[in-house]
Each structure stands twice: as structure tokens, then as C-alpha cells.
């Protein structure tokens, strides 16, 4: 009984996580300028990853493994905040043209 309850919760959390990742990606298409897109990507993806981490926690075989999953979320959070800041700064400083060129090449 409890097991199936946990399973259902996990599936729901996982679906919520995937939904937010999808919405975050949609932001790339619906928002018109770079900075608004970064808003969507950082904030919504952070939420999506959070839901997926919550869904995975009951599956962790040990305390350390569970903490590892949480650590992944924390590091991804720090990375996304920092990269959002760096991209925003680059846009503001007017190296937009160079960045777009780099994106096309990559």
C-alpha cells in the first residue's frame, strides 16, 4: 500500500519535472529577447530539476547516494545562476553579435 503510494508520488513528481523542463524550453521560442529567455531557462529548469531530484530520492539505496542526488541539484543551481549572470552581462556589454556567431558555429 505504502509502496504503491510512494511509486505514484514519484511518477507524479517526475511528470511535473519533465513538464517544467518542457515549459522552460518553450520559453526559448515564445520569449523574444535573450534576457527573457535566460529568465525562463534558469528559473523553470531549476524547478524541473528540483522535482526530478525529489522523485529520485526514495530510490536512493543509501543516505550517501541520496545526498549525492541533492548535491547534483545544488551544483546545477549554482552553475545555472552563474552562467545566467555571465550571459546577461555579455548581452549587456554588447557582444551579442559575437556570441550569436559562436552559437552558429557550435
Amino acid at each position, binding site marked *: 500500500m505504502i509502496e504503491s503510494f510512494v511509486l505514484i508520488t514519484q511518477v507524479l513528481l517526475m511528470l511535473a519535472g519533465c513538464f517544467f523542463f518542457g515549459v522552460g524550453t518553450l520559453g526559448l521560442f515564445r520569449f523574444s529577447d535573450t534576457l527573457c529567455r535566460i529568465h525562463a531557462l534558469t528559473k523553470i529548469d531549476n524547478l524541473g530539476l528540483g522535482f526530478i531530484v525529489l522523485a529520485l530520492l526514495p530510490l536512493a539505496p543509501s543516505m550517501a547516494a541520496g545526498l*549525492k542526488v541533492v548535491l547534483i541539484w545544488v551544483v546545477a543551481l549554482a552553475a545555472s545562476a552563474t552562467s545566467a549572470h555571465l550571459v546577461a552581462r555579455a*548581452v549587456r556589454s554588447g557582444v551579442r553579435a559575437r556570441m550569436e556567431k559562436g552559437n552558429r558555429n557550435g
Partner: protein
Amino acid sequence: MALLRAFCLRAGVFFLVWWVLTEGDPSGLWSGAVIVLIVALFSCTLYPPSSHALRPAAALAFAGYFTLRSVTAGLDVARRLLSPSIPLNPGYLLVKTSLPEGGPRWLLANTLSLMPGTLSVRLQGASLELHCLDLDLPIDEDVRAAERRVAGVFGLSETSAEESPS
């Protein structure tokens, strides 16, 4: 003395991270201990301990506040994105922070990047340039609230945080 304390503290945190990364595998603990000591030594040489000490209780409270606000942020952007008219009123806003240089300012800038409606664009001295999704939101109040929390994490008293020109 402060250096020794920082060294022990960092070594402890790094060892915890090692333990988590190896998922508690006992065969890796000894090599981990050696690596942790080397890394802690390097870390203390490269980043000498600053005068801003973290307050564990306030840091926990901050983590709770941060989680709550970042969930709000995600939902807020998702709501704007999914509504047919895309209600946005984007623009730049310049705020002055009263937090001291270094760690506190960086924490504030990174926190604001994940808070509802704000994205830190440039940090120059005490002025922080934000990009806002909606300028009608009470952004100034949010920034002050986040600032107070950050000040609490670093154990800076409210008065000293508000004394400086804002």
C-alpha cells in the same frame, strides 16, 4: 588561529563531499582523506578565510527561504510563458546594495538571479544592475528582503547593513 579553524572546517566539508561522491564506499575513504587534506591546503592558500563567517542556523533558514522563493520564481515565469498574451514588462533596474564586498555581494547577485522576476546583469562596486521581467512587481522590496537574509547568513548586523549609503 582563524586559518586553522578555516582549514579544519573546509577539510570537514570536503570530506563530506567525498563521502557523498563515493556513495559511502569504505574502500575509498583513506585515499579520500589524503586528497581532502591536499585540497583543503590549496583552498586555504588560494582563498584565504575572509572575515565573513557563515552562521549555520541563519544559513539553514536562508536555504528554506531560497527554496520557497525559487519555486515561486519558476511558477511565475511558467505562468507568464503559458498565458496567451505573454504579460511582460521587461526592463533594467539599478539597485544599490549595502552589503560588503566579496562573498555577501556574490551571494546576493546569484540569489537574485533565481528569485522571481530578477536576473543580475552586472555587479559593479555597490551597484547591481538587474534585468526584470515585470517592472510592476515590487522588486525593490524583494531585493531588500533578500539583502537582509544574506546579511543574516554572514552574521552582519542589520544596523551596519543599513548604515552605508543605499
